[in-house]
């Protein structure tokens, strides 16, 4: 093949968001199809799945393949792209009868609570009736086809990315409508008799034929933009236009007439395809029965579930992190003092933090599951000294909240990120602290009351969709031994004193899976729930109680949330300039006092004013008989999704910019520690994982998600305090304004130039 041909085939332009959306749609459809398929093998045969996936694939091909890169050079390529969007993707997608499988493939809450009210909305019914009327469908498709082939409109689309997208959206959307009455996807019913369909297709084919013929026989170049670009493959602009017209004419006629012929055969056939014999009500009833526990259970997932359930599954994860922690310790104390060249400067700050918060947002508290700092506990137990209970006066989150705030302050004020030795000291202190606390006190006192990383993970995991939970409550009511809590001769029970039948959410849960292994009924799983479901309500949780009564948990949440904004703000350009200005103006020796004051203001003063003030204002506006403390606590915890989103957005930046730092740092560490097989490090300017535009898009989307989830959690909290809608709105309004202000500050921070940490700048 010629080099030009190879270049042509290499010209793929994969749009990340569209690709992601197509993959998600395919996954949802496949899940729903599989569920329905289990009920009745002939309900949705395999060819429908194949059609739907082929439709999505052709849609993706139209927008990601070299066709897209060459549509500005060749009208023929552009025509093939349009034919995929008009004649291939829409009918294939509709042949998949997508409505029911997609509905069944969605999580139950999304289908019932989010979509349900809209699907039952009479106005939508009337609009849909009008939209699917065959006359309307035909007219819209014809207008779109004719309108976009008018030279002025076509040139507009060629010269503007935005209009080009609108053009493609018009073709695809109008074609879905056009093919709707033809295919009549299950379970819709026709508005016109079936015999009209061949006529309908014939009329559609006439429009297509007229345009194709006009392109072929007009005798002049209709789209001058193609004359201005270099001509590829020796094809003149006029010949290109004729070829595109012929393609449209021939392929369009083949599809329209072929579909008309098939429908005619179907009409004449004595045994048409019929899904009716299966009662849909029976389908749903059977589906309900067949749900087998319903929720996704990670422990039942192939391979991963078995690994997690295995006796030493957690130990393997901890062992891996222990090796890394020891490497960090060794390199931190003995390696180069330059943070980007040292494992202690890169692994914890660039990678571990980012992966931990991404896991918290997307799944659950898997950092605590793999935490190596709890391994010394096992060693400490051998000493037999752990006979005391953790002091009553320390059984709260106050100590941990203070340690977490202190850690956020120290990170910036003492530049921990830039000091491998300090990082190594922190890791060493962690091992020593965990060993000391758990050597003298029963249970997992260090995890529950001391560890600031653990507390961060606990409070953040209230947003996570995965939760260690009992599968069937009725099994627990019959259980007399309560092994999950008390343990048995084989396996200890929950050391954090969480009684699984009353456990709700992931607060204080380290995902250690001791309860899973102790349960004799195999009744505990890692189940999926809607994100923030734990914040949307406030039941009495085992060993935690209600959030509205826990001022210490509220303080922890506020430190985590405001720490996200303060930590990110402290490394953007304007803050640095501001800091330097005040240091110079006040004749300070260093920025230490300024940074310290900033963190006191950000982590203590601002939360009190923002959340306390908004809760007080809401209480005053509604005059509800609830204490300010309860409102404060509930609204403080409801901010967690926004805080976690800010953490993820911020740390995603560092992960993306320092993505390729790990390997040369590992090589350097290997050389420092006398391990040569990792090879010589190749220090070079790190390429980011995500392009700048894509990264900002992702950050803003994550922040948007955090805002939406926070507002939802706040709304549910307000409803719990003030059941009437008007009162709930008055209660929520001041707090919602504060949340929007926090979100705006997050957007501002993300738009500022940020220090690139943990990467080489050579």
């Amino acid at each position: 093949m010629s080099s030009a041909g190879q270049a042509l085939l290499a010209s793929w332009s994969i749009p990340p968001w569209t690709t992601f959306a197509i993959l998600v749609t395919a996954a949802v459809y496949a899940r729903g199809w599989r569920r329905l398929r289990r009920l009745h093998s002939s309900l949705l045969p395999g060819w429908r799945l194949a059609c739907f996936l082929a439709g999505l694939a052709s849609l993706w091909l139209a927008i990601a393949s070299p066709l897209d890169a060459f549509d500005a050079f060749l009208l023929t390529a552009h025509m093939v792209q349009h034919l995929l969007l008009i004649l291939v993707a829409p009918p294939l997608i509709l042949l998949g009868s997508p409505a029911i499988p997609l509905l069944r493939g969605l999580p139950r809450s999304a289908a019932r609570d989010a979509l349900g009210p809209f699907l039952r909305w009479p106005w939508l019914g009337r609009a849909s009736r009008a939209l699917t009327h065959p006359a309307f469908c035909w007219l819209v498709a014809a207008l779109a086809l004719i309108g976009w082939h008018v030279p002025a409109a076509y040139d507009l689309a060629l010269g503007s990315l935005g209009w080009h997208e609108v053009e493609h959206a018009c073709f695809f959307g109008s074609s879905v409508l056009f093919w709707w009455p033809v295919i009549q996807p299950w379970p819709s019913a026709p508005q016109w008799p079936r015999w009209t369909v061949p006529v309908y297709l014939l009329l559609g084919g006439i429009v297509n034929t007229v345009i194709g013929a006009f392109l072929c026989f007009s005798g002049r170049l209709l789209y001058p933009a193609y004359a201005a670009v270099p001509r590829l493959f020796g094809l003149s602009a006029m010949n290109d236009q004729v070829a595109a017209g012929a393609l449209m004419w021939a392929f369009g006629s083949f599809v329209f007439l072929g579909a008309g012929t098939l429908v005619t055969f179907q009409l004449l056939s004595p045994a048409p395809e019929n899904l009716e014999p299966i009662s849909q009500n029976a389908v749903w009833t059977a589906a309900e029965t067949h749900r087998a526990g319903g929720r996704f259970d990670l422990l039942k997932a192939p391979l991963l579930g078995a690994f997690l359930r295995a006796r030493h599954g957690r130990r393997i994860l901890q062992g891996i992190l222990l090796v890394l922690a020891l490497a960090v310790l060794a390199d931190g104390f003995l390696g180069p003092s330059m943070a980007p060249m040292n494992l202690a400067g890169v692994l914890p700050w660039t990678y571990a933090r980012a992966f931990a918060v991404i896991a918290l947002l997307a799944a659950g508290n898997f950092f605590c599951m793999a935490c190596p700092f709890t391994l010394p506990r096992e060693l400490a137990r051998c000493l037999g000294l752990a006979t005391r209970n953790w002091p009553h006066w320390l059984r709260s989150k106050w100590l941990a909240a203070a340690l977490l705030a202190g850690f956020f302050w120290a990170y910036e004020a003492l530049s921990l990120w830039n000091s491998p030795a300090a990082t190594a000291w922190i890791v060493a202190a962690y091992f020593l602290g965990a060993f000391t606390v758990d050597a003298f006190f029963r249970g997992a006192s260090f995890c529950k009351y001391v560890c600031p990383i653990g507390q961060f993970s606990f409070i953040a995991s209230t947003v996570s969709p995965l939760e260690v939970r009992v599968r069937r409550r009725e099994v627990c009511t019959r259980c007399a031994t309560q092994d999950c809590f008390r343990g048995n001769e084989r396996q200890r029970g929950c050391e954090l004193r969480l009684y699984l039948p009353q456990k709700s959410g992931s607060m204080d849960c380290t995902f250690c899976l001791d309860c899973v292994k102790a349960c004799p009924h195999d009744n505990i799983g890692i189940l999926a729930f809607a994100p923030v479901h734990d914040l949307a309500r406030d039941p009495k949780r085992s060993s935690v109680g209600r959030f509205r009564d826990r001022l210490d948990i509220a303080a922890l949440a506020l430190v985590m949330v405001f720490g996200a904004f303060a930590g990110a703000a402290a490394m953007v350009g304007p803050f640095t300039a501001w800091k330097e200005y005040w240091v110079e103006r006040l004749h300070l020796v260093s920025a230490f006092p300024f940074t310290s004051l900033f963190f006191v203001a950000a982590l203590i003063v601002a939360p009190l004013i923002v959340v306390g003030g908004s809760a007080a204002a809401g209480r005053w506006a509604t005059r509800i008989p609830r204490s300010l403390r309860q409102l404060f606590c509930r609204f403080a915890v409801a901010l967690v999704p926004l805080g976690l989103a800010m953490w993820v957005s911020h740390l995603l930046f560092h992960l993306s910019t320092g993505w390729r730092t790990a390997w040369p740092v590992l090589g350097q560490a290997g050389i420092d520690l006398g391990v040569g097989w990792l090879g010589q490090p190749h220090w070079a300017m790190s390429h980011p994982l995500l392009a700048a535009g894509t990264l900002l898009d992702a950050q803003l989307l994550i922040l948007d998600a955090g805002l939406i989830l926070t507002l939802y959690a706040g709304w549910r909290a307000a409803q719990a305090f003030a059941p009437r809608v008007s009162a709930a709105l008055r209660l929520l309004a001041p707090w919602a304004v504060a949340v929007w202000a926090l979100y705006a500050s997050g957007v501002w921070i993300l738009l500022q130039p940020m220090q690139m940490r943990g990467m080489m700048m050579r």
Partner: protein
Amino acid sequence: MSGRAIVRYPESSRAFSRLREKADRETGREGMPRKFRGRVKALGLAMLFAAILVPASLRADGGVVCLRKASGPFVITVFTGSAELRAGPADVSVMVENRVSREIVLDDDVLLCLQSTGPGGRVLEFRATRQQATNKLLKSAIVDLPAAGEWKLTVLVRRGAEKAIVSTHLQVAPPLPRLAAIWPFLVLPVLAMMVFAANQALRQR
């Protein structure tokens, strides 16, 4: 065929069903054909997914030709990402053809030089490569236009001993405010709030 099943989602509780029946009575939908109900809901869902899939994400080559000129042994065509250039990052692509055979030249080096035509004009250089181009027949570079005004773009093409230079003037408009680039992300939460409000209102009916 019964479309009622779509309305009656299997997990729907008794209260959920009662709410629906009440809504049906109040809106007079009891007499509506069941098959029709199924169809409209199916269409609603399909359109929702179509709306998610298509409009926000389709990409196209919206490049426009800003220069096409023969020079030395080559014909050089320069494309810009949009007709109206603005200060900030801009996509500039170059296609080089053999002047005689009109074959696309792929093994050449392309350098872009931008010079401000104002007093004390700065000179910026960018190397255009195939790696940065979506269309691998082109060489592209993301050039950072630091300020609005008139800029002279010079394209230097070299293949072995063969060289060619073409130049043109670009009018660069002031950059759009940052908010103009990110407004869809700011509107998204507002839309979500409106949809949620509608959801809650419909549930109250």
